[in-house]
Each structure stands twice: as C-alpha cells, then as structure tokens.
C-alpha cells in the first residue's frame, strides 16, 4: 500500500468517525428530549455521553479543519507585504503553530496518562476519561502534521 493510498484511507476513516459521532450526538439528544416528555425528566448519563463524545469530535474536527484550511485568520496584513517578508512570516506562522500544537499534544497526553494511572472515570456512566482526553493529543498531532505537510488544493476542495 503506497503512502498516498494510506493517507486517503486515513482521511476516509477520520471523516467516518466525525460523521458517526455527530449522528450519535443527534440521536442521543433526541432520545433525551423524548425521555423528558415520557419519563418527565432528562436522562443525566446521556448528557455525560454527549459531553465526552463532543471532545473527540471537536479535536478531530479541528484537524480536519486544518486539512481544509478552514481555521480563521487575518491575511490582510500579510497579503500586502513584499513576497520575501510574507514568506518569512509564513515560516514563522508554521513554526509557532507546530510548536503550540506539540505542547498541546504533550500536555494532553500527560493528562490522559495521569487519568489512566489514577483510574479516573466520569461521574455517572463510569467511562474512563483517558479515552476521550486522548483525542486532544491525537487531534493536535494530526493538525501539526497537516501544517508541515499540507494537502494539495485539489484534495482540499474535496
């Protein structure tokens, strides 16, 4: 399997996780609304599931947004600089972004490992917290990877 095919499979997998988690969130929320009318109250653990699952979707989605270059920035000033200075600003921008994301990955991984070691679980459904926290370093590393190796415009458009 060539690296290109591998990358495409990885992207499809990433999209699948994002789509599936969003569907799960919609279904769980709908169940909660129904429960409030059938049983007269919301199902607390369902809120906890939504909160934990949403962390995964946000961090993975942030990496996908990097792939499609959807993160908001202000290009007004850089767009008016001479090309050599704009290029230098671009390098500095990449360096700052990657350095920040590596720190996030390190700190997120440390938090996940400490939750794993301490057996930290969520309040009502007893799910291990590290499973969800792990998406912080995963998402951050994926974002950093995509800053260093940006996708081609044709792939971005897809």
């Amino acid at each position: 399997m060539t690296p290109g095919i591998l990358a495409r499979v990885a992207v499809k997998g990433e999209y699948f996780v994002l789509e599936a988690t969003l569907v799960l969130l919609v279904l769980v929320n709908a169940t909660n609304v129904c429960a409030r009318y059938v049983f007269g109250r919301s199902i607390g653990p369902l809120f906890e599931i939504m909160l934990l699952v949403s962390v995964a979707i946000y961090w993975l989605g942030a990496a996908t947004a990097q792939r499609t270059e959807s993160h908001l920035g202000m290009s007004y000033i850089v767009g008016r600089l001479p090309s050599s200075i704009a290029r230098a600003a671009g390098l500095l921008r990449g360096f700052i972004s990657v350095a920040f994301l590596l720190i996030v990955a390190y700190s997120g991984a440390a938090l996940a490992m400490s939750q794993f070691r301490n057996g930290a679980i969520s309040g009502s459904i007893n799910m291990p917290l590290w499973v969800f926290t792990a998406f912080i370093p995963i998402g951050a590393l994926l974002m950093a990877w995509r800053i260093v190796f940006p996708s081609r415009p044709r792939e971005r458009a897809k």
Partner: protein
Amino acid sequence: MSHTLLLLILLFAMVAINVPIAIALGASAVLVGFMMQGDFGFVGTILFSSLQKIELLAIPFFILAGHVFDRTGIMFRMFRFMDSLIGRVRGSTGLVASGVSVMLGGLSGSGPADTAALGSTLGPVMTKRGYSAPFTAALISAGGSLGLVVPPSVAFILYGIVVPGISIGKMFIAGILPGLLMGLLIAMTSYVISVRRGYDAVNDAFSLSVCIKAFWASVWGLLAPLTIVGGIYFGVFTPTEAAGVAVVYGLLVGLLLHREIGFRDLLPLLRVTAVDTSVVMLIVACASLFSWVLTVDGTIVVIVAGLARDLTAEWQVFLLAGFVLLIAGLFIDGASIYLVLVPMLMPAVRAFQIDLTWFGVFVAVAVAIGQFTPPVGVNLFVAARILDIKFERIIPDVLPFIGVSMLGLVLIYLFPAVSLWLPSTMPN
C-alpha cells in the same frame, strides 16, 4: 513588563502574521503561562475542561440545522414565498434577502453559516436580477450577521457561559425584537441603494394563486422558527434540546416531505458541520487558556476596576463597551471577543447594576457588526469566496450597512424595552 501586556503584544503580533486566531490565543497564553507557572501542566487540563459545558452542545446542532435547512430547499422556498409577495417592488430581491436573513437567523445560530447559506442560495438569484456582486456580497454579509442576534444564536450561548446565572433561553427571546429591528434597518438600506442604482425591476403582475402556491410550498419552513423559538419561549425546550429538535425537524421535512435530499446527501452536511463546529470550539478552548492567564496575572482586573471607578454613569459603560467591542471586532472573531473581552467588561456592568439581558443583546449586536466589518469580518470572507469576487471590492458597498447597524446599536441602548419587553412576558 507586565505579563498581561506581553500576552496582548504576542496575540496581536501573531494575528498580524496570519496565525489562525485560535492558535494565536493559545500560543500566546501557553508562552506567558509557562513564564508564570514554570510548566505546561495547565494546558491539557484547561483545554479538556473548557469544552465540558452543556451549553456548548447546542452549537453543533444549530450549525447542522442551518446546513440542513439550506440543503433541503426550505430556505429557497421561503425566498420564493416572500418574492411572490413583494416581487414587483423595485429592489424587492434585496428586501426579500433581508427578510430571509431574519428567518434563517431563526433556524441557525452562526453568522458565517448563515452567510454561506444565503450566499449560495440567494447570491446567484440576485446577480441574475442585476444586482452588482459586491452589493450582493455586502447585503448577504450584513444579513448573515443577524444569525448572532435572532434566536437561536451561538453568541447568546457563549454569553451564557461567560456570565454565570444568565438564562440562555431568556437571552434568545430578548434577541427577537432587536433582530427584527436590525433586519428592518438592513432592508431599508438595501431598498434605498437598489432604487438609486436602478436594481431589480421585475415586471410580473401580482398573482394570488402564485402567492398561495408559494406559501404552501414554504409552510413547513415558516413553521420551523415558530416551533424552535416558540418552544424556548414557552419553556417546552431548553436551548440544547431546541437545537436538536431543529435538526430533526429539518431532516424530517427535507427527507420525507420535500424529498430534496436523500440519506446519501447527509454525509457532506455532517462533515461540514463537524468542521465548522470544530473551528469555533478550538477558539473556545484556546480562548479559555488566554482568559486563564489573564485572570491569574490579575493586571486586567486592576485596570477594569480602575476604569469602573472612573466611570460615573451607565452610558459611559455602554460607550466603553461599544468602543472596545467594535474595535476588537475589526481584528478578532466573535467567539474570541465573547470569551476574552466580555468577562473583562462585566465588573463595570455589575458595578452599575446594568440589566445583564439588555447588555447581552447590546454585546451581540456589536459583535454582529464586527462580523461584516473589514479587515477581518469573517462574513465578508465567506461571501467573497461564495460569490467569487475579491474581498476588497465589497468594502465600499458594505459601509452603508455598517452605518445603519451602528444606528441600530444606539437604538438598542436608548430603548432598553426593545430587548427587555419580550423576556418580561415569558411564562415562568
């Protein structure tokens, strides 16, 4: 040098070289936080806990609802109905676009999402009817910003997070009349410009049968904002539940009644929603890091407390807030303004016992103006991309809309009842 000053310098330097806003907030906070604490331990904990808020769950649902209502043709049917009513008036398409902006604001909650939906649906119609592309982009950018004021609004959810104890449902209801006021001002501006430039003289005669047909075709769409906002008003749904209901309602109408989409079409909607939501949430998470450093350093609290001491009247608090929010809106996005600047203003607001709902609406309108104010105005970028024109070409055409929106902001300050009357009638 004070840590806060260094933090702000780093933030502006990074934003200036086009570092994504979220990363600029996070990177400046991590660097200064490390100088203060000596380690990075705080980063993971804050990033994890900042997103664990039930109120935030409404955001992906409202963004998804906006995409669903656009893709299922519900929005276009609303446009056709309003067009059948006033299509003979000169400049009618601009008026209709303003009306649809208000209605769409009642379905989705995000300015850029609404601008994208309006641009892709109404943009081609307007240019076909003779409107210039820059004017179309300007109108759509200003109309899209109403998503922040008309309920359900992501802005009010973020306000509920930074101002503990405020009811997001009440904020939603408070946004209805100001949203209508802003929509009216935008429509009037569009009408005046269209008449002056001779845009859009449709000659078809009024037809009651066409009007009734268009009404029936759009009835499910017209019922949607009533269901969502009415549900919140009467306490049937919480905002998060209402967001979920909006998605399910849109899907049922799109899949079963209008049949304009199939299950296969849902995947791209889910994908784009996940990306749009994550862009906002990364800003929320990184802004929490930024706010944490500001709070731990404490300089800003001292400055605001000093300012609050020097302020002698309520109008000065609004003037300060308006000035700070509008200037900030020129350079940074709405979510960052809410999470970083609004908490700084709150001590002064509380000191003068200003009604938090009234102030929340004032902030939402100020932030909404920032969404279509150059140089950053995110809605302008979205509209420019969708209508395929250069960003710079929109700037002259958007200035009148910025002007009338500022007038709206002043009116909202002068007449608090515009924001406070409807919430006061809500059943307990």
